[in-house]
């Protein structure tokens, strides 16, 4: 397993209206799947977080933050258990959340 020290980051938040987990993706659009999230490194990550905070200030999302990821087959995967569960859904209910394949 790759280490977070790789410094790869994605930006995540929750939508204000629905609370759904979203990830900052191409064209700074918020998407529901971490796999399509834009991956940042170093200063570009900080800049992306600032853009996300601007999005939060306009009431689209809440609490944006940088999340450590590794790349698996080119797609980002959260490093910490908490963010992995956020990106998939509850580990105890495979029928719920993004992992269930249903639209959120």
């Amino acid at each position: 397993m790759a280490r977070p020290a790789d410094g790869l980051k994605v930006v995540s938040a929750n939508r204000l209206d629905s609370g759904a987990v979203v990830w900052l993706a191409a064209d700074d659009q918020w998407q529901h799947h971490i796999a399509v999230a834009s991956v940042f490194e170093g200063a570009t990550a900080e800049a992306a977080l600032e853009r996300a905070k601007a999005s939060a200030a306009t009431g689209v999302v809440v609490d944006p933050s940088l999340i450590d990821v590794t790349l698996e087959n080119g797609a980002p995967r959260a490093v910490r258990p908490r963010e992995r569960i956020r990106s998939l859904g509850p580990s105890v209910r495979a029928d719920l959340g993004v992992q269930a394949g249903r639209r959120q």
Partner: protein
Amino acid sequence: MSHLQAGHYQYDEIDRRFLTERVEQFRRQVERRIAGELSEAEFRPIRLMNGLYLQLHAYMLRVAVPYGVLSSAQLRQLASIGRQYDRGYGHFTTRQNLQFNWIKLVDVPAILNDLAKVDMHAIQTSGNCIRNVTTDQFAGAAADEVVDPRVYAEIIRQWSTLHPEFTFLPRKFKIAITGATTDRAAIAIHDVGIRARALGQGAVGFDIFVGGGLGRSPFLAKSLRAELPQADLLAYLEAILRIYNQYGRRDNIYKARIKILVHEVGIDALREQIDAEFERIRGPKYRLDPEIVESIRAHFASPPFEDLPAKSPAFEAALARDAVFARWAEINTVAHRQAGYAAVTISLKPPGGIPGDATSDQMDAVADLAERFSFGELRVTHEQNLVLAHVRRDDLRALWQELGKHGLDTANAGLIGDIIACPGLDYCALASARSISLAQQISARFADPEQQHLIGELKIKMSGCINACGHHHVGHIGVLGVDKHGVETYQITVGGSAADDAVLGAVVGPAVGYDEVVAKIGRLVDAYLELRAPGERFVDTVARLGVKAFREKAYGTAA
């Protein structure tokens, strides 16, 4: 909307007007948030005051179940909300409330409106205010009850509702009350614990305890005042809260609970301050009129019990011919003060299941059974189960058979499978580690009813972070999940208790990883079975032999 009358505070037009106004107020607050008039920092405490959290996957709405009492109609409405706005289930909590996990902010005003139709709400289920008052799940039924605590829980609920002075406290404030000789309300681990007592000649008085709480710095409550007269209950609570509001720490969230004030100032000095405030407050304005108490007591009148013999021949016969039923009846029922009746615990802890979760279909089924067998009234317990408080012994077998059809006949109340677990990392934004899946593995491992029976009373309580919603400090076996450099790690304690012999558990050995927890608990249980003296529960053996004996057996070391 009609409710059956038994044992339930009936809202009148004034209560309903209040609730309708409160729903409208929150609707406008949501609108102001979405319009940008309120920032998230400003909206957060406002939504929390209405039980609305932002969790890992969505908003979570915590619905108040005042002192754990529900009518069938209310439970059906919760089932319906679960279907319409959530994913067809809800989660009963250690504070006798119900949580929905997949809520959208924009739906909340409509949900609150649906709740208001059955006189329910989410007021003060979170936030730095006086929270839902909790009590004995067998109130009004238990054979050992001295004073009905629901009467005073309802009075405190009303008094604390949108209290203008105590809604922005340093931190949350939890009150529990018991009126039985056995404390089933865990009053020692609350900010204020109240023991209602009969003082003779019909008078009721209260022993008041203060400063209990778990979390990062666990404390058991200390005695503040004995035999407080009924008329002074609210004046005295006002005095406690006012001193806390003024002097409780606000510089550090982990030191803001009243238990820290008690610890830092000392119980005697704090009592002096509170008593001085009380003497100033005491007067006609804050006096609790006996007429008020009696008018609220009338809501909790006994249901129309039948005159039945103490022994039920039908029940005795069923016990004799059906060993599985007999085991359930032994484990999941308790003595009732009314001859011919029993109080029944419906376990929400099937082996391998998620503790406290119930589907909307199960809620509907329980609502029907409550109507058929228990006067249309039921309870939520702080151990995350449900209770039908007034079931005829003649009906126990029929009830059990019906429960079985819905997967609700698990015979494990108080046994090793009856695990308290917080939602943990699977749902909660504060959590550091998973707790539900460990509870599932433990209850599956000890699924065998024979083995559970052999082990006897053993309360496992698990929290996925230091905030201790799973009450791990007072578990016979407590499990606390922490995040150690990004890895879920678990600290195991033994010997805790939340009952009358309340005591905090002691760490039994070095913290272990997620994959080792179940095996360690297995070894602790093996150690107990080997070491126990006749008649001893797990917690008794720990008390007699100390933690060291268990450490040696389970960790193979005296270190």
